[in-house]
């Protein structure tokens, strides 16, 4: 019976992993981690526009077409919105595409621009042998093969390119997640640690402290969405004073800090309990004050425990979604700022799945990222607590 139960647990765990990995592995890439979620439209023109004679290094993969005149390769693909796309897969070192300049009104006009593989070609403008400007690309209903053929047969000069960045990245959410972690730890760590010190070292053991302790324990049982509601109504006026107009990272960070408090207080208290009583009496007998004892002896000894509390908190933040939906919002923000709304990784999953066309692959890929981070954090907690135990078993 026990074997069976343990077996079921392992099977469930494995199937979750396998399912998520199978769905997400193809989407997972360095580009996904480092690019924006929203596609960006970019208009370029070329400084160097004359054709040359280029050759593809190695064999051309199936379905990929190479422009011998302008030195780049493209292939067909279908986007997550089920539309046909032409994706740039390769750009030669001397290709005109390497000399691109931004061609839009504004401050960025005429600045150099690097086209990354993965970009989606909307249209190329070129001049044909009669000196007339023509277009080729998705906009004029061409696929990769015909677009390259058009360019290579009638293109005399490459004039411009209009393309979309691929989008679907999680760079913004990653950044927002780190901001949330920083923000909430910044509030919750000092408050939690000092509360734990008070409860464990200074408070008299009476009914009052027992009540405080049990209410802290009850806090950890409250569903996080309730904290989200509370944060939205209680903290919003504070963040509004700071200049946030709606859901913001500050608001989310404050709410998360409240969620983290019980975790941090409990863990820190446990770390303080492990510190031998003898060290306290030794320190006091040497004429140290209570404050000196706490800061010079007890806290340093409890540091590994506090560190593991911090790591646990971080994994809690990464996994949190319900409390953030109300407080940081669900709009994926590629350039998150403290006073603006953004999504954490977990909320981005919710966000990409809740549209009309759920993007399952991206959601799974984000899940992999979350699982890997949480796994790493859990292992570090194990290592830290192991070290803690070894230190005191002397």
């Amino acid at each position, binding site marked *: 019976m026990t074997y069976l139960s343990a077996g079921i647990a392992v099977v469930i765990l494995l199937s979750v992993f396998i399912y998520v990995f199978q769905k997400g592995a193809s989407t997972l890439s360095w580009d996904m981690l480092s690019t924006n979620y929203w596609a960006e439209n970019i208009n370029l023109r070329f400084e160097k526009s004359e054709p040359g004679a280029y050759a593809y290094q190695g064999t051309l993969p199936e379905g990929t077409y190479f422009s011998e005149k302008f030195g780049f390769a493209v292939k067909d693909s279908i986007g997550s919105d089920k539309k046909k796309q032409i994706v740039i897969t390769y750009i030669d070192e001397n290709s005109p595409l390497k000399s691109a300049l931004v061609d839009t009104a504004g401050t960025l006009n005429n600045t150099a621009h690097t086209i990354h593989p993965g970009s989606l070609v909307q249209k190329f403008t070129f001049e044909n042998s009669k000196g007339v400007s023509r277009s080729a690309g998705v906009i004029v209903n061409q696929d990769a093969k015909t677009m390259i053929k058009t360019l290579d047969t009638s293109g005399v000069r490459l004039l411009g390119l209009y393309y979309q960045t691929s989008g679907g990245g999680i760079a913004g959410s990653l950044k927002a997640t780190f901001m949330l972690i920083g923000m909430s730890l910044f509030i919750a760590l000092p408050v939690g640690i000092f509360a734990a010190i008070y409860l464990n070292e200074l408070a008299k053991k009476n009914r009052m402290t027992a009540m405080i302790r049990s209410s802290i324990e009850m806090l950890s049982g409250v569903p996080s969405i309730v904290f989200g509601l509370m944060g939205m109504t209680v903290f919003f006026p504070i963040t509004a004073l700071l200049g946030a107009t709606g859901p913001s990272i500050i608001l989310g960070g404050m709410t998360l800090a409240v969620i983290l408090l019980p975790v941090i207080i409990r863990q820190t208290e446990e770390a303080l309990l492990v510190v031998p009583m*003898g060290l306290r009496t*030794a320190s006091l007998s040497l*004429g140290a004050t209570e404050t000196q004892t706490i800061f010079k002896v007890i806290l340093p000894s409890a540091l590994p425990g506090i560190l593991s509390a911090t790591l646990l908190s971080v994994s809690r933040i990464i996994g949190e979604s319900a409390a953030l939906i109300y407080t940081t919002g669900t709009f994926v923000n590629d350039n998150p700022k403290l006073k603006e709304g953004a999504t954490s990784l977990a909320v981005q999953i919710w966000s990409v799945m809740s549209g009309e066309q759920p993007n399952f692959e991206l959601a799974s890929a984000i899940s992999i990222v979350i699982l890997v981070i949480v796994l790493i954090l859990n292992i570090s907690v194990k290592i830290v607590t192991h070290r803690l135990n070894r230190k005191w078993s002397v």
Partner: protein
Amino acid sequence: MNKFEVKNLNLFYGKVQALKNINIEIEENKVTAFIGPSGCGKSTFIRCFNRMNDLIEECKIDGDMTFDGEDIYAQNVDVVDLRTKVGMVFQKPNPFPMSIYDNVAYGLRCQGIKDKKILDEVVINSLKKAAIYEEVKDRLDSNALKLSGGQQQRLCIARAIALEPEVILMDEPTSALDPIATAKIEELMIELKKEYTIIIVTHSMQQAARISDRTAFFLLGDLIEVGDTKEFFHAPRDKRSEDYITGRFG
């Protein structure tokens, strides 16, 4: 001369009376040993001398206890100052999980002394006085927890000496140590009594007989007898002391 004078001291843990009407004088530059069976109040009593019982919430003390003529339980007494004058070594060696150097320098640093020269000098002198310097002089930076039990206990003595106290309280300092380490600590105590007043709690009557000048015998919270060690062990005045020494109980 008397370092401490205790008159009619009573100590309660909640409603339980742990010490009953204790009267004793502690002489300067002598070793005074407290002996008695477990639970007789001798450890509780030694913790009165540097007010370590303050840490126990339910502990109440009445009676007089003077240190160099001043009442140490008076309202305006600076406990921190008292504890720097009355050092303490505990039953279980309890060095801080820091380097040997930092352990000895701890008390001074708590007083705000940061001058490296002064610290160096005091640390080395204290380690020498505690007869451990030769063993650790090459590794003052290594963690004190790596030392053996006996070395740790001598380090704790060095740590207490570093504050240049007038009195050193020792609460069963050798009960967790092997005979060789015990012998070293005893030797050290005989050396130290030239400069310090020492009060030691011990379970071992042989130890009390070997190193102490005066012995006090406690039983169930009462101080039964106090006197010169030789007299105490050869001709105890009280029947109960005699029974204890001869091993009839305890």
